[in-house]
């Protein structure tokens, strides 16, 4: 790791020597490498765009498709689009503050997902206690629900928070 850092530090000096046209082209490519020029890391914009799109889809789904009459249910559901939007805003904002906002937003989505799965598990146990069994159909339905929640809600923040925590993600946001 120290060797790689030393190599990267040494490169600007090498650029001072005259080069052939093909070598200059290669150097331009190197300059575009996000590892060398974090401001050009496209992933930041891709993640930010996905966050905004997912937040919009979640909001429409909660508003139109799965409206919930119970306030506690609504509050929990709305944490998904709001936290996703926060994650997206942080990612698009960039900088140290943006990085922190994105990490907190992503963690909030993940936490909310874990709480949702916890609620499903506990409710299934409650129903099994009251009714003596949960039943194959209900168990299948609950598992499908959890799988869908993981796939549709948890996957994006998992990947994005992982990216934010990597060196590339931190550099893209100007975080040392």
């Amino acid at each position, binding site marked *: 790791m120290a060797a790689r850092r030393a190599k990267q530090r040494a490169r600007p000096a090498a650029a001072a020597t005259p080069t052939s046209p093909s070598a200059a082209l290669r150097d331009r490519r190197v300059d575009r490498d996000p590892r060398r020029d974090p401001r050009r890391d496209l992933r930041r914009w891709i993640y930010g765009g996905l966050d905004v799109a997912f937040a919009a889809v979640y909001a429409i789904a909660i508003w139109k498709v799965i*409206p*919930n*009459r*119970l306030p*506690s*249910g609504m509050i*929990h559901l709305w944490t998904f689009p709001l936290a996703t939007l926060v994650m997206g805003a942080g990612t698009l904002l960039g900088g140290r503050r943006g990085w922190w906002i994105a990490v907190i937003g992503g963690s909030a989505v993940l936490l909310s997902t*874990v709480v949702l*799965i*916890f*609620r*499903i*598990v*506990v*409710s*299934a*146990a*409650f*129903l*099994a*206690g*009251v*009714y*003596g*069994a*949960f*039943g*194959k*159909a*209900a168990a299948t339905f609950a598992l499908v629900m959890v799988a869908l929640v993981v796939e549709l809600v948890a996957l994006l923040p998992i990947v994005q928070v992982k990216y934010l925590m990597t060196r590339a993600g931190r550099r893209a946001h100007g975080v040392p």
Partner: protein
Amino acid sequence: MTRRTVALVCVWTLPSLVFLAATAIAYGSFRIAPPDRLDAAERTAVMAALRAGPGEGAAPGVAPGAAPGGTAVHRSIHGPLAVTVWSGGRSLLRVTAAAADLAAATAAAARQLRDHPAWRTLAPSDRELARLQVDIVTGTGPLGGHSSWFDAVAVPGIADMLAINPGVDGVAAELDGKQVLLLPHELVAARLLAARRPSSVFPDFAMGADVDSIAQLLIARAGVAGGPRPRALVRFRTDSFVEAPGHGPGPAAAPLPAADRAAPLMLYRGIPPAPRLSAQTLRDAALRGGRYLVAHLAPNGRYVYEHDLWTGTASDASRIGGAYSMPRHAGTTYFLAELYRITREPWLLEPIQRAFAHLADLLAQGTCAGTLPDGAAFDCVSDRGEATAALGSTALTVVALAEYQRATGDPHYLPLATKLAAWLLYMQRPDGSFRHLYDIRARKPDENAELLYYSGEAALALARMHAITGEARYAEAAGRALDWLVDWYDFFMAGFFYGEEHWTCIAAEAIWPAVKRDKYMEFCHGYGAFLRAQQPEPGDHPDEDDYAGAYSVTPFVVPYNTPAGSRTEAMISAYLLGKHHGSPDRRVAGQIRAALQYVLAQQVRADSNYNVVGQGDGAIPGSPIDRNIRIDYVQHVCSAMIRASEWVDRDP
């Protein structure tokens, strides 16, 4: 071990451990173990002690809680013992006694019963006829919706909406230092167990307990109206049993020895054990259903459409219109004709003719009659004042009239059936499908309306017309209708999803052998497999073994009884169709037996009519917790019973 390794191990194991612990805590908190039930001798002893107590008083020297000459049942009990006295189907009174020992609680309850004014004013003969129900509280648990920690972490709505196992759980509360109980059957009677409407998309779909109203009811029961809301509500389970119909000592001239008197019947969800399935039991049960319908046929030929067993209130058969359904009138009469064809019971004939006379009366008013474009005379069935004629009303009338002719050989109604069938043929499109509604004034079919059941009913009507006339045009039309119905399922994933196709399978069997197509049998066996997946077996849901054989979605949704009948009618046809093709499906036969065993338990009979107001013998309630009867509930279930009685003992 490095910090990274420890972190990784935690990340991969802690969530599972947390979920597992949460599951164990929630399950353990809310589980009430099934009761350790009293055996027949113990139940008899408890009941005898109660009867001895409230009568002339226990004999001197008799142990508390024991009948004279009997032995007291000593057993530690978890909660109070409640005794409900049923007289004329109504709950006359209830007493509750608490003690640590069953014998002591029984003695205390007997004393209360003896001193109760309602009991004292009851004539001795009525006391003898009254049936005592005992509920012994065997365990308690918290009530969802009233459990602060759980309500906060559960999926919103689950804790309060599905808090109570209907008909099995009771609810208790401490009010003014006094424990107040609402027994499982009292919650059912109060109609508070399917009182929530969870979705605005399906406004008719109700499920889930109304816990707030239950709390109000407890306050009212405690006699502290306007008092504080109970702080802690708890669920409880009971060991319940009721006196059998022959519990009494018999006539004074020839009293029955104690050993010959029927032991009290164990109850589960308010229902005693079912009779054993056999051809004879099914035949008896179907005839009981027939008697119920005949007793609910008014002099004007219309049925008493609904009857509430809790209150005895019933629909007014003299009132035209309202919720009365002409397809159901025809379908019910069809069942009576079918019952007559199979049993030849003479008492069925006059009511069948009376119900037909009502249809003929409606037809004679000529609101829906005339000449078709091809010059054929037609009739169609519609109730007075209706502007639209439904295909199903006419189709089922044809089925009923044809069934009458099959049963009696009397062609009296054949001209009428022919005119009705002409209209059915007119309503059929060239591709085999049907128009379902017909504007009587404009004399025009509605090309867009699609309603459940009607196409299958029309296919059956045409098949039956072929059976009584032998005319090929009916067989051809029925075949085209069935082809359209069966071929509709030619899509990706077909075979995994089915609509309500029970009339389709009945028609497919009815048209055999005039139309023989393997695809009909394959379709109906596939439909059977689809339905079987919804049919729990004993042991699948330990607390809900009484639902075994019904068609249910999960253990926490109470199944309706009618589908167990209508789908069994279809499965009987599917099984017979398989036999005709030389490949009967034994799994379908097992499915039929399971469903019939379930509905045998649900039917109101002498054992289970202790809480029935009015003439309810033979009735099939809406569900184990819905005591409302509609004529078609009886029709479908009893039709399945009588048809199965023809082969159930014979076939493996």
